[in-house]
């Protein structure tokens, strides 16, 4: 009888109990340290002989809270045991849960009951905003800890060596809409230079541009370079419609479709490096990271490139482990039969790329993330473009959440896949909590100015508001730095700048999410990539203020109220609540003022770059060189085999 256990059995028999035990120990350590800190003032006044007994109190005097945190730790440890985190990762997550749970319990049992009943409405709003924010922090901490402290990766793609006998037909589709001719010209030129048998790949420009002259020019370019130019009479379905139109016309032998953004310069080895992954018949799509060549174009592009690294080198590998990545719209390849299985791209969605990932997963297709860059595009280098891009992403992803939540829950996806696809859209809501807490702080701060006393009523909450969110902010920065360091960004300064960039877009996200919830219809808006030139100080400042009216007004109001409160403190006896409020107002003011600051810096530091592209004449003059020929078979090898 075979008594050996397979890997899953071993995991169930050893991994879960071991993880639960380690988690329980983490919970106990957290409780012990907390109890030690609480007891420190008393210990300082007792005799030294009693201290060992007092410090060991959690071992011999069990409390309900001790049991709760130990059981919570055991549960978390058991649940994440399959992910093989480092122990510090598990300890960090258990401590975070302890912190957030303690915060909410303290608010419910101590802070709010001590507020005068007539004033509690504000406490409830504050608690709701904090609880929502904490919920998101707990969820997204999981991903960053998974990326930063995981010890074993089980789904990292093996390199697929080029096999000249494996040559599926591939269509490289470039959807364009009024992009500058020079940008698209280089994209097509790079694509036709793929090291892949030329009969087996087709470069297709799906041209939805509105200018007929521009379309004719593009058609001539395609003709010269051996690419196909496809245009339509109407822009029905926007980008998704253009893609569906092309895919419906593809020859039968085309089996894989790769979507390439109009500004991408794709590596010649892209196709030969990716097609091999489709030998697994369950793989519906393969995604590679987006990368950028204009990282030095402005202050904004520097931060953007690092922030994208967080997504592509932390979030995506973590989700890839669970077979729950998203298709990112460019530098990804989809099996045509999978596309047909889900009836193509959804034409009523503005994030058709992320949306199709959900339907493919719901239909049982697997996905694979290959963490290796095969092309470089352009990212938005000024704030206006950045804002448009995030508006579209926030709007589109929340629409996906609302339109597909039922599909996801009813599908045969695993629990973790469902969680990943549902949770991935939740971070777009975090702006609501930041705005809500900012508004409450503003209301509290206006008290001394408008003549009402809210600070006294909410003194206890303000102390808590200073301590816990500050700790969470530190936690977020530490985790972000931990992950960014793995993606190659070593400096603490970069971590803070990326955090600032995310704060600068919160209000835009709130507006986009609200529109999406209210059922607004937003057409697909292409992210403009042509940055223009740098602006003078005055023009940059004016444009920044125009683009960030809400953030500037709100941030300015918070800062003003903070200074007025500080002035009031200086005039009278110091109040701890008012001091904390003033400082917290300044912190929130800085969150909102990141928007005009980043906008200004993006225009002032703009330095449009030029790139050495490919020579079209060289390509067309020599004809597309067949970089891979079919004569890969060694005749002597054949004759040797024949003779055997």
């Amino acid at each position: 009888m075979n008594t050996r256990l397979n890997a899953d059995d071993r995991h169930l028999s050893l991994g879960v109990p071991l993880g639960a035990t380690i988690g329980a120990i983490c919970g106990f350590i957290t409780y012990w340290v907390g109890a030690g800190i609480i007891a420190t003032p008393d210990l300082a006044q007792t005799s030294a002989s009693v201290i060992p007994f007092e410090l060991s109190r959690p071992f011999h005097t069990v409390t309900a809270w001790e049991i709760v945190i130990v059981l919570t730790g055991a549960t978390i440890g058991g649940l994440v045991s399959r992910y093989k985190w480092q122990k510090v990762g598990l300890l960090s997550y258990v401590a975070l849960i302890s912190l957030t749970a303690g915060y909410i319990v303290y608010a419910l049992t101590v802070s709010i009951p001590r507020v005068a009943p007539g004033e509690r409405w504000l406490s409830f709003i504050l608690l709701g905003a904090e609880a929502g924010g904490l919920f998101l922090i707990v969820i997204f901490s999981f991903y960053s800890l998974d990326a930063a402290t995981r010890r074993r990766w089980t789904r990292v793609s093996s390199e697929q060596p080029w096999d000249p006998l494996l040559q599926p037909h591939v269509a490289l589709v470039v959807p364009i809409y009024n992009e500058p001719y020079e940008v698209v010209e280089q994209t097509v030129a790079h694509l036709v230079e793929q090291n892949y048998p030329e009969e087996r790949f087709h470069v297709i420009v799906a041209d939805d541009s509105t200018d007929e002259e521009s379309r004719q020019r593009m058609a001539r370019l395609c003709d010269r370079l051996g690419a196909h130019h496809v245009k339509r009479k109407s822009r029905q379905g926007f980008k998704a419609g253009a893609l569906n139109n092309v895919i419906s016309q593809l020859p039968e032998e085309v089996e894989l479709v790769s979507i390439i953004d109009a500004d991408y310069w794709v590596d010649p080895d892209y196709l030969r490096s990716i097609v091999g992954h489709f030998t697994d018949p369950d793989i519906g799509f393969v995604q590679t990271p987006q990368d950028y060549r204009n990282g030095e174009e402005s202050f904004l592009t520097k931060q953007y490139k690092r922030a994208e690294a967080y997504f592509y080198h932390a979030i995506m590998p973590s989700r890839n482990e669970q077979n729950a990545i998203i298709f990112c719209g460019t530098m990804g390849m989809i099996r045509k039969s999978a596309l047909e299985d889900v009836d193509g791209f959804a034409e009523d969605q503005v994030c058709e790329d992320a949306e199709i990932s959900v339907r493919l997963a719901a239909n049982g297709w697997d996905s694979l993330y290959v963490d290796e860059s095969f092309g470089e595009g352009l990212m938005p280098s000024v704030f206006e473009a950045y804002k448009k891009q995030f508006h579209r992403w926030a709007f589109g992803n929340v629409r996906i959440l609302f339109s597909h939540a039922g599909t996801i829950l009813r599908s045969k996806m695993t629990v973790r896949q469902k969680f990943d696809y549902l949770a991935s859209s939740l971070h777009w809501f975090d702006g609501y909590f930041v705005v809500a807490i900012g508004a409450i702080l503003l209301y509290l701060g206006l008290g001394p100015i408008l003549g009402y006393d809210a600070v006294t009523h909410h003194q206890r909450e303000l102390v808590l508001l200073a301590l816990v969110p500050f700790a969470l902010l530190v936690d977020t920065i530490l985790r972000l730095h931990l992950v960014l360091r793995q993606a190659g960004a070593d400096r603490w300064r970069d971590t803070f700048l990326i955090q600032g960039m995310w704060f600068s877009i919160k209000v835009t996200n709130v507006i986009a999410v609200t529109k999406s919830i209210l059922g607004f219809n937003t057409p697909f808006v292409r992210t403009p990539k042509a940055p223009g030139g740098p602006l003078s100080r005055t023009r940059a400042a004016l444009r920044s203020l125009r683009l960030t009216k809400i953030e500037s007004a709100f941030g300015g109001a918070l800062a003003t109220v903070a200074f007025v409160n500080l002035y009031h403190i200086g005039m009278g006896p110091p109040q701890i609540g008012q001091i904390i409020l003033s400082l917290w107002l300044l912190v929130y003011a800085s969150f909102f003022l990141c928007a005009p600051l980043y906008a200004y810096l993006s225009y002032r530091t703009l330095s449009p770059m030029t790139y050495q592209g490919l020579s079209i004449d060289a390509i067309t003059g020599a004809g597309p060189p067949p970089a891979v020929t079919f004569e890969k078979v060694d005749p002597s090898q054949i004759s040797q085999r024949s003779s055997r």
Partner: protein
Amino acid sequence: MLRAIRSFLAEVPPIVSRFTRDLVSTAEGWLDDLAGALGPGDGLFLPAGKGASILILGGIAMVVISLSIALYVSPRATHKGPGRSTESDRAGSGTNGTGEPRPRFSAAHAGPMPEPAWLERLRETIAQKNLGEVVLLSERSGRRAVAIPACSGPEARQGAPTCDHAHKLIQAELRAVEPQGRVLAVSCKAQGGQACVFEIRTGGSIP
């Protein structure tokens, strides 16, 4: 502002303000019950707020300590993404961590495949036509590459271009057994290639 809110509440239809008041007072009742249940005194239940304070302070301390340790001990990975997993890492790890593990890349993990019936028949037919011996160059899940060294022989030269003749022969043998099968010409000796190579695909959805 509070006064303004109160006056606004007073002006709205009574049913709305009554509903709001009821909602708040109900929540306050729950809160009082919860506070009473969680903090009656020392012993198993700590005084109100003490247990939560322990969780908060312990949590803050351990978050900072553990992440600082993680920053210290985890490698400064300057490469992109996680390292490649080893064979032993992947062994037995199903995609979703449940059920039987599936081979992710069958080409790398599957052993040699048994020779199918059509290939045997093809060998016989090609031999009968004096086109030499069919050489199996490679095989992976659902696809095989074969070379026919003598496909440019005298019989093949009659009529259509050489590779077309061999192509049709293979196609006919394959279709007789596997109607979904496809044959693709990879290289043709008559057109300057060093050998006549065909890729044979079976299994429907396999690319």
